[in-house]
């Protein structure tokens, strides 16, 4: 018989917080949990629509319950019960502290320096974490025209740390983007027409040291070295380092690989399936639990 939400809540602490095995989770669950691990409990998080929202909600429901969530439409610290489909979904605003608009979020919160973590998507990323969400090909005659910045460029340059969730493909991991919507650790200085470290272009501003911290893809987790260059930190189960390299448009640094990305724990999977996206909006399906876990659920 279906369990009530109260019964499910009581079960959370009973489900073992141990790593699940390959075959017991699907890729979007792994991506949601891997990105959720980037959130600290004291973070002020500014998240975009889509998988970033699932990631941040997963973090908020597991390891970072005190992390404060800001959504660009004007929401401060929403206590979301149902996963929003958009940053302006009223679900994001449930029991929030204050509600305003874009001047609040981009001005009062972001430009004034409160935001410690940005959580964003992107169409392509360059070697230094610069992101394109605008167009492919010539800007004025694009082969593909995307949505354009939205909050990506603001959040991606002014949040202290930024995590991107991007699909891993050769055409999406590039030496240089066709159009840089959100600069990474290296970018153009249009005053002097030079390609420079972000630190120099943004010198003396409050955001010279803010920028990309990690990229989570469908193949692994990436970080940035002291030169601002991206490197592979861990790869997903079932993926090899060579496969990651093959799906990258430049010579990827794989010298710092620590190993396989930790798999989601049974408890994390339980929370994602029963509380984060039980409506199956982002997750394509709900997997069956393993016999052992199902027995615990049935017993509780």
């Amino acid at each position, binding site marked *: 018989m279906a369990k*009530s*939400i109260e019964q499910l809540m009581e079960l959370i602490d009973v489900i073992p917080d141990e790593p699940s095995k390959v075959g017991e989770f699907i890729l979007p669950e792994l991506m949601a949990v891997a990105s959720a691990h980037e959130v600290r409990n004291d973070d002020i998080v500014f998240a975009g*629509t889509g998988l970033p929202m699932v990631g941040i909600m997963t973090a*908020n*429901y597991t390891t970072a*319950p005190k992390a404060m969530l800001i959504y*660009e*439409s004007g929401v401060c610290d929403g*206590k979301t*019960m*149902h996963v929003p*489909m958009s*940053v*302006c*979904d*009223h679900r994001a*605003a449930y*029991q929030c502290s204050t509600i*305003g*608009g*874009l001047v*609040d979020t*981009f*001005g009062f919160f*972001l*430009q004034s320096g409160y935001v410690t973590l940005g959580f964003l998507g992107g169409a392509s990323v360059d070697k230094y974490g610069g992101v394109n969400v605008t167009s492919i090909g010539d*800007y*004025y005659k*694009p082969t593909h*025209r*995307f949505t*354009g*910045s*939205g*909050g990506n*460029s*603001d959040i991606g*340059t*002014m949040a202290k740390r930024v995590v991107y969730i991007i699909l891993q493909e050769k055409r999406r991991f590039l030496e240089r983007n066709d*159009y*840089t919507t*959100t*600069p990474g650790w290296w970018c*153009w200085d*249009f*005053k002097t027409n030079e390609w420079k470290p*972000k630190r120099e*272009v*943004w*010198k003396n*501003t*409050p*955001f*010279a040291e803010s920028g990309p911290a990690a990229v989570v893809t469908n193949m692994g987790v990436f970080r940035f070295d002291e030169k601002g260059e991206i490197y592979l930190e861990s790869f997903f189960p079932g993926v090899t380092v060579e496969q990651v390299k093959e799906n990258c448009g430049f010579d990827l640094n794989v010298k710092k690989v620590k190993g396989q990305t930790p798999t989601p724990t049974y408890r994390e999977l339980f929370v994602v399936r*029963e509380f984060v*996206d*039980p*409506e*199956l909006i*982002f997750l394509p399906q709900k997997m069956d639990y393993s016999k052992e876990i199902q027995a615990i659920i049935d017993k509780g």
Partner: protein
Amino acid sequence: MPRIRGKTKTAEILTLEEAVKKHVKNGIQIAFSGFTGMNRNPFAFSWEVVRQGFKDLHSIDRHGSCCTWLLNAVNAIKIQETDWLGWGEMAGKIDLNMERNYKAGKMIIEDYAHGAMAFRFLAGAVGAPFMPYYAPLGSDLYNPKYDALGRAGLRDGKNPRIPKKKFIQMEDPFWGDGEVVLLPAARPNLAVLHVLQVGDKGTARWRGIGTIDKEIAFAADEVVVVAEEIVPEGELRKYPETNQVAYFTVDTIVECPWGAFPSAVPFCYDYDVPFLRSMDAASRNETDLKKWLDEWVFGPKNWEDFVVKLGTKRLLDLKADSVTGYSTRLLRGKKPAPRMKMALSVARSGY
């Protein structure tokens, strides 16, 4: 050219047809309320704009929406000055009508970013000619090569709605806090807002997110407020701290229930995911799009007829809960929403 105001307006109550006829002209610059295609889009207003056949509009906005989707469906937008061109979020990220028109050279797109556009409207609202903003230095948004209106020769000062420059980058002269970008104020002809309630004198109230709706109301020369209901002005003045738009900026009031469909009006109704998806599907080829427009835009006798055509079942599913402000009966994904009483984070760790 400086703008002199110095006059309060007396809001007039009109029908949707009359309001569109009075305020819209070919080629005007227009801003719509709400955020993305999912929240308080004045869809009925843009629907009527399309029915009355206006063209060559200059949309200036923070978002793509159901309004811009529909206007692009009939190629009524000539310039889209925006910071985000998606519209339907998870139901349809890219506006395919826009993409088609843009690739065919039928429209100009000028890119900004959310914060930048918010600050442009803030400047317009508070009467400042420009506003400084940091982000995003080093982005192609502020690459001098990428100034679409300049490239089209439209920054010659002849159009009082188009500033002579897209931006200027300068060093902070006061505190030495690095380089900043100066952004020109946004000064549209017309702002159209969809709200929950409006007083019969024009004071307007919404619940939930505000995006930059207060700013667009003060930045625009003319303001139309479309509301779910018109209430006696005195009722809104019992709790003035929950009102957002001052009556003296409002020119025209329209009562139009379900007028933001298929986007949401928090505490009234939710966004309609299947309908948004059907719009996205229709925009995939021109034959389907024409069929869709004939059925949903040119077919109904008036907006009320459009709402009746939606059917009772759909409206029941969309009706918002009185406590959450959204619908928990709506099937958004593959499974129904769980009966939550509080967020899990609150249940486990408090506020």
